């Protein structure tokens, strides 16, 4: 196994162009688990920690190697909330946003946030850059639109990021747990509402009928929230696995989305 340690983005892209099948290493919180479990045996690893461009966080752009620990401290409430639910402090100090995108787990905790904000994923290769909407980047469990020779540079957020945003996650213990269901709700000033649900489909998904139902309604009535909850439960596509059942996930998705919306409205 060879480990390449580029010092800047150009170096990283050159290395990737020379080794298009290389595994990218940032925090290693997914890659090292896969290596240890012998699910993956990369011949080439490109370590990205020294690439300063990837760790940038400026208006509207979050770099791929920004860690959860950093997200926890920043001012986007839902991002801080989701970051706090990821692993242990050690994992949060290592794990990155780009890793969550690259792994593309249906349960990835940062993904509902990106979906609710209609974020764009910025990809870079030696050839150049391109942008994909989140739902054109995330294609299925572990499956993304990333091409050989390409890496995730970061995500672009829309020009206006509403302050009313909230995240919630169900897991079978108080912390350090993979999501059974996770959820991010964003409420724009004009009443437009975005509801993104994770771990209830092959990728994170948006509950668009439920979004439309509450769009522009300043104070949704309990009856309307009941209907909102019902629609979210209807729109998700959960499965049964060793972590939970489809039936529970469907039920919980509705309850969780409703509560997260209520929390959002009161922000």
């Amino acid at each position, binding site marked *: 196994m060879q480990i390449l340690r580029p010092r800047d983005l150009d170096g990283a892209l050159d290395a990737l162009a020379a080794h298009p099948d290389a595994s990218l290493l940032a925090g290693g919180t997914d890659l090292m688990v896969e290596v240890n479990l012998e699910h993956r045996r990369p011949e080439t690893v490109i370590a990205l920690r020294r690439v300063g461009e990837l760790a940038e966080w400026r208006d509207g752009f979050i770099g791929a190697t920004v860690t959860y620990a950093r997200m926890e401290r920043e001012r986007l409430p839902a991002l801080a909330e989701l970051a706090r639910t990821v692993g242990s402090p050690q994992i949060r100090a290592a794990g990155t946003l780009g890793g969550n995108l690259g792994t593309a787990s249906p349960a990835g905790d940062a993904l509902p946030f990106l979906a609710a904000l209609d974020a764009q994923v910025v990809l870079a290769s030696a050839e150049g850059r391109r942008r994909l909407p989140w739902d054109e980047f995330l294609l299925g469990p572990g499956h993304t639109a990333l091409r050989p020779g390409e890496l995730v540079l970061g995500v672009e957020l829309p020009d206006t990021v509403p302050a009313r945003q909230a*995240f*919630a996650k169900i897991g*079978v213990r*108080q912390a350090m747990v993979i999501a059974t269901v996770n959820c991010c709700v964003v409420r724009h000033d004009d009443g437009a509402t975005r509801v993104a649900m994770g771990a209830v489909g092959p990728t994170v998904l948006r509950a668009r009928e439920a979004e439309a139902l509450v769009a522009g309604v300043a104070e949704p009535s309990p009856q309307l929230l009941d209907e909102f909850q019902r629609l979210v439960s209807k729109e998700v596509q959960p499965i049964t696995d*060793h972590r939970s059942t489809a039936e*529970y996930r469907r039920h919980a998705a509705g309850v*969780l989305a409703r509560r997260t919306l209520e929390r959002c409205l009161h922000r």
Partner: protein
Amino acid sequence: MTDLGVRRPTLLGGVGESAARPDGIAKTTGEFEFLGDMSADGMLWGATRRAYVPHARIVGLDVTPALAMRGVHAVLTFDDVPGHRYQGQHVTDQPVLAEGVIRHWGEAVAVVAADDPETARRAAAAITLELEELEPLTDLEEALERGEVYRHVRVRRGDPEARGEVVVEGTYETGMQDPAPLGNEAGLALPDGAGGVDIWGPTQWTHVDHRQLSACLGLQPEAVRVHPCRIGGAFGAREDLSLQTHIGMLALRTGRPVKMVYDRSESFAGHVKRHRSQMRYRHEADRDGNLVRVTARLLLDGGAYELTSAAVVANSSYFAVGAYDCPNVEVDGYVLRTNDPPTGAMRGFGANQPCFAAEAQMDRLAAQLGMDPLELRLRNALEQGGHLATTGQLIEHPLPTREVIRSLAAIPLPEPNDSDDPRLLPGGTGLTTPRSGVVRGVGYAVGFKNLQFSEAFDDYAEARVELTPDGAVVHTAAIEVGQGLVTILEQIVRSTLNMTHVRVAFDHTGRIGSAGSTSASRQTQMAGGAALEAARRVRDEALERAGGDELDEAGVWRDGRLLASLEELCAGAAIEHHVRYRHPATEEPDENGQGALHVDFCVAAHRAVVDVDVDLGMLRVVEIAIAQDVGKALNPQQLHGQIEGGIAQGMGQAIMEEVVLDRGVVRNPTFMDYLLPTSLDMPPVEAVLVEEPSPWGPYGAKGMAELPTVSATPAVAAAIRAATGRPLDRVPVRPQGIVGLQ
């Protein structure tokens, strides 16, 4: 000689004090050398090839691709086992390596020794293994129908015609729990150059390992020395052999030291687990709440090999009623052969499963009678002078059942949660649950279990105490797995010899006889009993030699005059005494499961307070209170440590810990998915120690470390039932169960 200027030393760290562990600082600072830290010059690394299918025939097994690899020194299979080819603590029915058939997920097929761990792993993977998969047997009812029964324990007591007016029935299930000790399996085998071998491996009983290892390695007993290990945790997982035979074989074959270390996933495949169970109960009582009859059928999943299952199902059956009087009892306990992973000992050893079911039954009965659940338990409490409901055995020694229940009830309930701190709400950092949506529930359970080995087992422990100029040394083969025996032995011998400087030397099997297993809540009473008796003899001899009447750190005294210093006492023949200590004898059961099968008993009562988000199925355990029978508290701090750890494990089984099986395949063999309680899940514990001295335990002590686990599980489940109103007859309770879904 002169005594001028000699002061009477003060005894520090005797019985009853919270003496510090001698290895505490080394463990805290990371300097303690655990098993996995050991190494030897010229050492090779071992790795195991396993088959991760539940049932298959081996149709092809070719080790040549592995042997051909550079750096590989040996590849061994079933045919290479030099001696007896089966192992197991009680019943030796587990092949050392698979014998043409895979009978459970993760069964070991071959082992490799290579220059480094990576080469060893790659070589293990390079072995060609062709399997023809077979239908696994994983349904307990089907196993019973097919007669795949390791043991059937039949208990019949009282009048078969007796009936109670008030009847409650229920069926219950408990999941398979992993002991999940923090330290993964690790070991080192060192050839002695004369055909023999020294083995360090994860163990709870070196002498029982020694018996199996010398048989399997085809060596004379004196050619094998099993060393005490320094291992992080056990909980039963180390009672059966894991990697010891494998490293022994590899070391003998290569003539070089061989080390092997499991990672966490392999550890899930490599050690026994707690039996999952399915239980059917019928309780009958009169209108006043007196139990008239209990009928139970218990099915335990014994997995692919028998190992200790026969003794586990005995415990389940004999403790099927709990700490209650009941004149008429009918229990059929079965432990079944399946293609699930092998099960064996785990903290509570079969008492946990029926406790979950029987305590739920007591709550149902109380509800049916309109009676307070604690009142019902007090009314039926079994104490000294009563008879064990199942076996009819007279309870000869103190059993403070009413006292633990009353002490528990006297602990104030925690205040309602008025904080919005998410860590104190169900769902924790996931922010799922507003405070307004929470319902509080309170649940109780009484735990009851035997101490020591039962059913006429010849159960003994050896210890040798030696007086030195600097104090005393206790020699034992008993295993310290972190539970604190090392401190307890020091304290017992300090108090007996009246001297502070006491050290424990953990000896290998060639140096001292068996201390028995570090299990069954044994060692405080057994190794402790042996050390106490040996220390008494040392003290008596020292006094006699010097003609004094008091012994301490300075020497032997009479009338305030020092007659002989320790140095002077030790100048002649060594003062040391070796004791083989036995507890009072037990009997074998008759054909109805009747008899004095147990030495002694221990009881505890738990109260759990749980906040439940009933719409989402999330919960947080707010507090667990316990009143625990301890005989006499030799080290209160250690007792509290055992209580808190035991409760964490029992609570874990109640709300999250389960080996998820899918037709024999383990779906969650990592700590990513096998969830253990974290510090945010573990609630504060309020513990009361109830002291009624044991007439035979050292300084009145009882072993106690299993009970905190046994009844924590049913208490938490009862609290969730109280909050939700749902029957919840299976643990772990899952969110879907709390909201009433699949």
